[in-house]
């Protein structure tokens, strides 16, 4: 059975946090769906709260601490990343952004990413498409079309106008699992597109 590595990045501050709760639910749904594909899964959770000082130090010095380095490697080498942030001031948290500020801009290229966010009110539902999706688009990640936003009231039974949170989590996990299942961790070789010098010479002589 192929082994898939899933990294979960959770930027919640409180303990326990609804952000971590949503991240765990998304991870569980993903693992379930991947099992249906016949994939074994190893999940690594990165709680940014524990790395906050390491992240700011890295921004200043340009070098990660061993703990942060381990977390960055877990995320950048994963077959899929689940990234969940609380909504602060209408966007991702500063800590969440700082973590992605320190990783290399090419390190998530082609990696499937499932985005999630939690907030006190449904007023911030657009945050997934207005803040998180553009960030991961810039990193050239494959952002799953189905992201999950959870407002405080979603943790109850939900209302009649929206599908329930468990239903959305299950659908997001299933779609993300499809992306991860078909994904290879092999990164593009920077020299793949380079035409060897001999070949360039041959083409030149063929032209003339």
């Amino acid at each position, binding site marked *: 059975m192929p082994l898939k590595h899933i990294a979960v990045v959770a930027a919640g501050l409180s303990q326990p946090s609804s952000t971590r709760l949503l991240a765990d639910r998304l991870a569980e749904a993903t693992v379930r769906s991947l099992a249906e594909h016949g994939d074994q899964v190893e999940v690594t959770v990165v709680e940014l709260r524990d790395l*906050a*000082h390491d*992240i*700011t130090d890295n*921004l*200043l010095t340009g070098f990660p601490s061993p703990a942060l380095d381990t977390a960055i490697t877990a995320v950048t080498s994963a077959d899929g990343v689940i990234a969940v942030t609380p909504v*602060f*001031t*209408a*966007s*991702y*948290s*500063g*800590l*969440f*952004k*700082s*973590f*992605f*500020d320190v990783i290399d*801009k090419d390190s998530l290229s082609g990696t499937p990413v499932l985005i999630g966010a939690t907030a006190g009110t449904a007023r911030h539902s657009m945050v997934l498409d*207005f*803040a998180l999706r*553009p*960030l991961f*688009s*810039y*990193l050239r990640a494959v952002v799953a079309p189905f992201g999950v936003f959870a407002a405080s009231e979603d943790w109850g039974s939900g209302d009649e106008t929206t599908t329930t949170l468990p239903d959305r989590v299950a659908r997001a996990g299933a779609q993300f699992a499809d992306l991860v299942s078909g994904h290879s961790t092999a990164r593009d070789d920077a020299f793949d597109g380079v035409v060897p010098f001999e070949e360039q010479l041959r083409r030149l002589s063929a032209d003339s």
Partner: protein
Amino acid sequence: MIVTIVAGNPKPASRTLDAARHVAESLTGRAPESVVDVVTLGPSLLGWGDETVKAAVETVSGSDLVIVASPTYKASYTGVLKCFLEQFAGATGLAGVTVVPLMLGAGPTHALAPELLLKPILVELGATAPTQGLYLNEKTYADEGSYETWLGQWRDIVLATAGLTVVGQK
């Protein structure tokens, strides 16, 4: 009129800070009264209730005009700047403050970032943001006339908006 510049570059005394100073001086004809170089607040930014951070927040929220500047990191404002903005009271933390969202980058590709990404955060905090977000090249912002068009279009409007703020009603 109290003018403050805020720079959210992980490096202290950055070009971001210098550019913010330039914009403040171009708008008002004098040096800003206060400077908040966010990164110098250090790890206290990660928590809540630190006195130095609180003083910086009060300086900004008590200003009439604030230039809020960030370099472009991963196509957006920095996490460092965002950490600072999270220290303000939601919806009202920048009420009565006229702001100019400013971002710097190496080329024109992210020119809409201050308008699309930074301005909504400031507006969410209650700021008055009368101008188009300003995006400057990190190498040429100090050149004469590098943002002449923007200045011509917005200078009077910024000054009028900031000047009309009634002191003592914040």
